[in-house]
């Protein structure tokens, strides 16, 4: 039998710890036992594929609810999904969800006293192209308070869910905005020890993505795990 080529272990310090005391919700939800090492098998090295025919893309979050324009500052978010070997990850599904411009999620559990926007649901789905590129149009999400500590506010952020080629490459993360003064105080953002890894969660303003007279552009590139040994190119 030939063994499937595994994905690389995560680099030390570049992923957040389950036990992140400053983020109170982790206290009763992080495992006490060390993770049990499992050499990757076909279960981990294969994964779901999503066809845009069956899972239609929805790349304009500003108008995918009622068709009427959502309120707030329009932004374009674009970037590349690649693997740790620098190769683009093509045709992979990216799910997006976020608060509206006032910092309120269209979700029953969100009771923040800020108005909902009937024309903004805050959810989208895009697929990377053959070169791993994605792009969507949305509203800049607002900051919002949360009960983690006194005067706690989440920095502006957009949630990203990515799949890549395998169960082992699944990634859920958050994109932040450059210059946000709340980043310094956010235990979720600061839960990743490695400063460089942490700062890669912050999108960059990009004048090339920006569309004149229409919307500011931000670049957010995502890297998924890559295989340890790269098979010969065909």
């Amino acid at each position, binding site marked *: 039998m030939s063994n499937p080529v595994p994905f690389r272990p995560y680099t030390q310090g570049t992923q957040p710890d389950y036990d992140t005391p400053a983020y109170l*919700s982790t206290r009763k*939800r992080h495992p006490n036992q060390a993770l049990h090492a499992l050499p990757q*098998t076909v*279960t981990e090295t294969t994964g*779901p594929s999503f066809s845009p025919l069956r899972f239609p893309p929805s790349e304009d979050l500003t108008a995918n609810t009622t068709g009427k324009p959502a309120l707030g500052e329009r932004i374009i978010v674009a970037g590349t999904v690649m693997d740790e070997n620098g190769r683009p990850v093509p045709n992979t599904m990216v799910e997006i969800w976020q*608060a509206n411009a006032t910092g309120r999620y269209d979700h029953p559990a969100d009771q923040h006293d800020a108005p909902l926007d009937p024309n903004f649901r805050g959810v989208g789905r895009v697929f990377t192209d053959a070169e791993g590129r994605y792009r969507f149009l949305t509203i800049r999400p607002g900051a919002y308070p949360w009960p983690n500590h006194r005067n706690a506010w989440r920095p502006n952020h957009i949630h990203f*869910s990515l799949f890549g080629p395998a169960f082992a490459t699944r990634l859920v993360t958050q994109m932040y905005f450059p210059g946000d003064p709340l980043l310094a105080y956010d235990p979720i953002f600061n839960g990743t020890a490695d400063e460089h890894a942490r700062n890669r969660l912050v999108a960059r303003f990009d004048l090339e993505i920006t569309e004149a007279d229409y919307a500011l552009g931000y670049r957010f590139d995502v*890297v998924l795990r890559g295989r340890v040994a790269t098979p010969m190119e065909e």
Partner: protein
Amino acid sequence: MPIATASQTVGPYWHLLEDPTWADLTRFGATGEKLTLTGAVLDGDGQPCADACVEIWQSDPPASDSFPGFGRSNTDSRGEYRFLTVRPGPVPGRGNAQQAPHIAICVMARGLMRGLVTRAYFHGEALNQTDPLLTSIDDPSRRDTLIARPAGTATWRLDIRLQGDGETVFLDA
């Protein structure tokens, strides 16, 4: 070389993504022995995690137009997830090993900075005795945290304990 982007918690509002039909892996017409896989996600106090996102993946039967292999379920007020799927068969392990039938599980939630990965095996399956993962766990009580038990007609139950007594074996894969 770039390194993988850091994970961030899925948070309490991930349901904006949710399509409840995704918990039914048979919805595209899969054939095979149908089963329900259910159980509660519990925290270190034994309290239900009612806002979790539970995902499953199985490499057998192979994904196809009629079987996605992948499912996603919320957890309800009792912390319970529930999937309808098709019973997997054995799949190859590393080398010449064979793996007992299993379903991979990833739990994400508020308070989980990263997904927690585990597996559901099936109680009574003969191949469990020689499965490479199960046999690599020395403590039988810990091994049992990966083994779903029959709970009614074509229904299997596996509770997932994030912390403390009976803590589920989570995997670094």
